[in-house]
């Protein structure tokens, strides 16, 4: 219910939203949690395992209980914290993990079975029979347990990622963070101030104390106004810093439109930031921990700080008769603020002896503990135990405080371990855990407002100084400086289940059970009990749990230690981290200049790295790809075919030492290549394995153009950079990738020259362009290059023009080819053509092949050194028992072959270790009328004519094949020279 005269929400602007289909009204500035509490709704969710009714526990991002699903359809987002989600007009919110309804949940029967469902129950209970685990147990458990569910549909929402840079990143805009940003900002430091809340102020928004002559909230607003006016300060609200990484980088999630419901039109829902900062100040504050006692998870039991926040910030009292229970002075504020606001305080219960509360208008019970709570779906009463006995107090809200834990998480992201401080019974950051990060305020165990302001000022000034700025004076406002005193109380002794981790339904008993079963390490305990897992990562409960573990194992808390806090601090949607990488963004598409025309002609496009190439060009009447492929092979063997080969890597190499570089990276010689000639080259890795192959043309004395395979273009470029920078920086040579600058087309077949002479300004002949010749040409009025090279074994050329002319040249070449009984050919035909000639691709040179294996050992020149030469000469890499490249053809001409199949001796057992090798490429040769392949067979070069067994166990193929030379067509090579 709302409390008159309290809160910062805009009471002039009401907002309507729906929760589980029912319409509610709140105010601008409300979260789902505050608005529901204002409407008297305390039951907000069901627990993970036992489906126990749960209400909201906190008022911040650490919320374990009040998880809701926002939105509907594909964009529905599960596991949103009701304490973080701001309400907006038309917001649709649903409760989770309850069926058929939140009020009546069938699976609550689990709670009755609780004695059997303790820590590790599924490890013990569902052991037998083994096959039941995957088939029955796991699906049933998964259905019964869990939080919200994804829609399972493609999410159309827009997410973004971005980089930001600053000299000082201030994390948290409470009193310490605001002072740090103010001090640094006034000194001229380039500052980014991040806070995950919708407005700056932090705890000041939730407290009634003044800062200077202003309320905490007004003081925060005044600082905000000054910071916003500074050009060197950027304030990012609704932005959670999620991780601290190497080199001063931070991850941060900004909820850009989660509070407006704006979708589409390019408006991102969230943005994932990577912030690079020279220094940082962590002013992340502290999180309150409850106290465990029987049934302490009843809806209506909340942290004392949260009750105060709902009252002071949102003008809401979570109950009509509120009881406060704590072990520290801070809890008293809740009772005092409630009473001052006119809310009935049933009692203040302090576990400590001899405590007095000044000006208390409510009963104060000291040396007492709450030992039970009643009311299944809403709190009705609590039982208070004193030395005199037990008494029941009627109450609908219990505010609990077991003390405050500094938010140390980010300081642990680079292996830091927090330090235990006995006086505040909490872990604080260990200095130096993150390079160049200072910690200030409650995050460092400073718990008074004045202390936080002072500490933030110090941190801001020190950062400014370290960044070389002159420190500017900032007045320290007057504020509360009361000491914070507490006596540890983690769990109230008693029967029944006392809850620690609300989100995972872990009780004190579970922790003790883990200890009994020797899961004594805090990391083992966590995994055995699930304590501290899921979305909240145990932000309220971890320290309590390890205190219970410490007690159960007879060790101290520092000795027991904490689990490891890892990024992200809060949940981050994968969609935000992967922004821009959905669909085609994940793998950008590269299109050739002939792409559009190929698609128009109905060619199915296949991926070649990021490139897309035509598979084949179907014609009317063709019903299978094989028909198209066979026809296209026929073009090249009988007339002329045209194929876009622009995707091959092209590297322009120039300089006096260009020849020296090529001699070093290729196994064979290129310094001896004449100008106007092309040579095929083989490249090795330094370990002697084949890296890539391709042709290289000498266009001038000091000018070469290297081609690489499509797949290895990037790797070869990197390799050339490595050789010229790391091995031979003294060489005078420069090179650059020109892959995208030139469109290049293969024109292949007996009529290739005839076709070209129809489009070239100067006709070519065997003398001007002999086999492996190259030079400049004018094609259709454009300066281009012509290379007489062949990947099909036919008389062939590759003609290159600047890319802007690629599309029109493709059309022109096709027009001529089709008139001559030829046409375009795609990857399928290209593959058959090269298999027929035994030309290799990366199917063969797969990173395990040597020059010896592919029958190219003689290509390693004896006249010079080259990359890989020494290691390639190792005995093991030249062993004749190595699989050597051969051709294969089936004994039965109708047999079907497949790449990937294994080869065995006929009659030999087809078992691992018994193989002769495997098949790397296959295709149907229309010329031979059967399937042929390339394979690697042990001692293969010496086995031509032998029959071996072909076995593809995956596809169920088995047949006899003959080993042969890997050249099936025109073995003399006459056609290519013709």
């Amino acid at each position, binding site marked *: 219910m709302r409390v008159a005269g309290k809160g910062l929400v805009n009471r002039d602007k009401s907002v309507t939203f729906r929760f589980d289909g029912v319409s509610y009204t709140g105010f601008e500035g409300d979260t789902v949690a505050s608005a529901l509490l204002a409407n008297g709704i305390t039951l907000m969710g069901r627990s993970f395992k036992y489906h126990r009714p749960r209400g909201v526990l906190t008022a911040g991002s650490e919320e374990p209980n009040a998880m809701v699903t926002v939105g509907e359809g594909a964009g529905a987002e599960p596991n949103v914290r009701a304490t973080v989600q701001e309400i907006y007009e038309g917001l649709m919110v649903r409760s989770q993990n309850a069926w058929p309804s939140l009020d009546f949940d069938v699976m609550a029967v689990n709670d009755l079975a609780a004695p059997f469902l303790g820590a590790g129950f599924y490890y013990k209970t569902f052991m037998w029979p083994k096959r039941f685990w995957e088939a029955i147990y796991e699906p049933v458990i998964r259905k019964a347990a869990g939080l919200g569910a994804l829609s399972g549909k493609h999410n159309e929402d827009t997410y973004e990622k971005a*980089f930001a840079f600053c000299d000082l990143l201030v994390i948290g805009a409470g009193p310490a963070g605001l002072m740090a940003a103010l001090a640094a900002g006034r000194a001229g430091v380039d500052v980014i101030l991040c806070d995950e809340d919708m407005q700056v102020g932090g705890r000041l928004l939730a407290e009634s104390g003044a800062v200077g002559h202003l309320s905490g909230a007004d003081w925060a607003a005044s600082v905000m106004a000054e910071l916003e006016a500074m050009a060197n300060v950027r304030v990012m609200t609704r932005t959670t810093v999620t991780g601290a*990484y*190497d*080199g*001063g*980088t931070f991850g941060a999630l900004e909820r850009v439109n989660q509070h407006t419901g704006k979708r589409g039109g390019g408006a991102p829902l969230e943005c994932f930031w*990577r912030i*690079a900062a020279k220094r940082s100040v962590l002013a992340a504050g502290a999180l309150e921990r409850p106290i465990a006692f029987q049934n302490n998870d009843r809806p209506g039991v909340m942290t004392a700080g949260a009750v105060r926040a709902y009252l002071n910030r949102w003008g809401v009292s979570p109950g009509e008769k509120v009881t406060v229970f704590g072990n520290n002075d801070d809890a008293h504020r809740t009772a005092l603020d409630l009473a001052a606001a006119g809310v009935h305080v049933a009692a203040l219960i302090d576990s400590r002896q001899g405590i007095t509360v000044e000006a208390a208008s409510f009963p104060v019970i000291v040396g007492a503990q709450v030992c039970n709570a009643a009311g299944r779906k809403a709190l009705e009463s609590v039982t208070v135990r004193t030395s005199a006995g037990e008494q029941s107090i009627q109450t609908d809200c219990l505010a609990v405080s077991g003390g405050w834990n500094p938010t140390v998480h980010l300081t642990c992201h*680079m292996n830091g371990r927090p330090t235990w401080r006995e006086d505040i019974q909490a872990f604080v950051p260990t200095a130096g855990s993150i*390079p160049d990060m200072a910690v200030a305020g409650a995050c460092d165990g400073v718990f008074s407002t004045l202390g936080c302001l002072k500490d933030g000022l110090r941190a801001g000034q020190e950062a400014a100084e370290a960044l070389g700025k002159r420190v500017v004076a900032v007045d320290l406002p007057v504020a509360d400086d009361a000491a914070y005193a507490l006596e540890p109380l983690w769990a109230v002794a008693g029967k029944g289940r006392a809850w620690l981790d609300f989100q995972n339904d872990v009780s004190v008993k579970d922790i003790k059970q883990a200890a009994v079963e020797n899961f004594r390490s805090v990391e083992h305990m966590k995994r055995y009990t699930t304590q501290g897992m899921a979305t909240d990562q145990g932000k309220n409960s971890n320290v309590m749990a390890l205190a219970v573990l410490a007690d159960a194992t007879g060790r101290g808390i520092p000795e027991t230690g904490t689990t490891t806090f890892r990024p992200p601090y809060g949940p981050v949607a994968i969609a935000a981290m992967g922004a821009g990488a959905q669909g085609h963004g994940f793998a950008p598409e590269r299109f050739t200049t002939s792409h559009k025309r190929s698609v128009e002609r109905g060619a199915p496009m296949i991926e070649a790295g990021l490139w897309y190439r035509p598979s084949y060009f179907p014609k009317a009447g063709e019903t299978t790809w094989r028909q198209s492929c066979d026809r296209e092979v026929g073009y090249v063997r009988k007339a002329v075919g045209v194929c876009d080969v622009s995707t091959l890597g092209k590297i322009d190499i120039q300089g006096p030492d260009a020849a020296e570089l090529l001699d070093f990276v290729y196994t064979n010689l290129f310094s001896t290549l004449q100008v106007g000639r092309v040579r095929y080259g083989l490249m090795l890795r*330094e*370990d002697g394995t084949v890296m890539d192959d391709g042709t290289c043309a000498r266009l001038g004395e000091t000018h070469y153009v290297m081609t690489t395979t499509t797949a290895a273009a*990037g790797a070869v470029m*990197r390799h050339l*950079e*490595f050789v010229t*920078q*790391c*091995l031979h*920086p*003294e060489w005078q040579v420069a090179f650059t990738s020109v892959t995208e600058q030139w469109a290049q087309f293969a024109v292949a077949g007996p009529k290739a020259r005839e076709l070209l002479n129809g489009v070239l300004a100067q006709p070519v002949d065997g003398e001007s362009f002999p086999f492996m010749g190259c030079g400049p040409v004018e094609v259709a009025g454009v300066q281009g290059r012509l290379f007489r090279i062949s990947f099909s074994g036919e008389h062939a050329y590759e003609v290159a023009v600047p890319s802007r002319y690629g599309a029109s040249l493709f059309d022109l070449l096709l027009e001529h080819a089709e008139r001559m009984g030829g046409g375009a050919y795609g990857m399928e035909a290209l593959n058959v053509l090269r298999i027929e000639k035994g030309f290799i691709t990366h199917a063969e040179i797969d990173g395990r092949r040597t020059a010896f294996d592919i029958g190219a050992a003689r290509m390693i020149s004896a006249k010079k*050194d080259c990359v890989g*030469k*020494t*290691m390639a000469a*190792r005995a093991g890499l030249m062993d004749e028992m190595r699989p050597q490249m051969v051709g294969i053809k089936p004994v039965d001409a109708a047999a079907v072959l497949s790449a990937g199949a294994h080869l065995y001796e006929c009659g030999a057992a087809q078992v691992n270790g018994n193989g002769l090798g495997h098949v790397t490429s296959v295709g149907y040769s229309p010329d031979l009328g059967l399937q042929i392949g390339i394979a690697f067979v042990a001692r293969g070069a010496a086995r031509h004519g032998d029959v071996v067994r072909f076995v593809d166990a995956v596809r169920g193929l088995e047949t006899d094949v003959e080993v042969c030379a890997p050249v099936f067509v025109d073995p003399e090579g006459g056609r290519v020279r013709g």
Partner: protein
Amino acid sequence: MRIDCPLCGARDRREFYYQGAAVALNRPAPDAGVEAWDDYVHLRDNPAGETRDLWHHEAGCGAWLVVTRDTVSHAVSRVELATDVKGAMA
């Protein structure tokens, strides 16, 4: 992680391609013998502490860099152009 490229300034590590130990600069002579070559191609130290790596500023200027960093703290203490390092070795 950020690498301070001597040519481009400090850049996010996603702009760089990681190669491995800077040992790759010390290519033996062809006749240096099996052990020297085995050492060069295959054997690497795995220090807990300072290490020297080769990184390629592939999405930047294309420079190969020798990065000295600590494998425990991840702190980068020095970034040099590989051409300078190799040049100084000559």
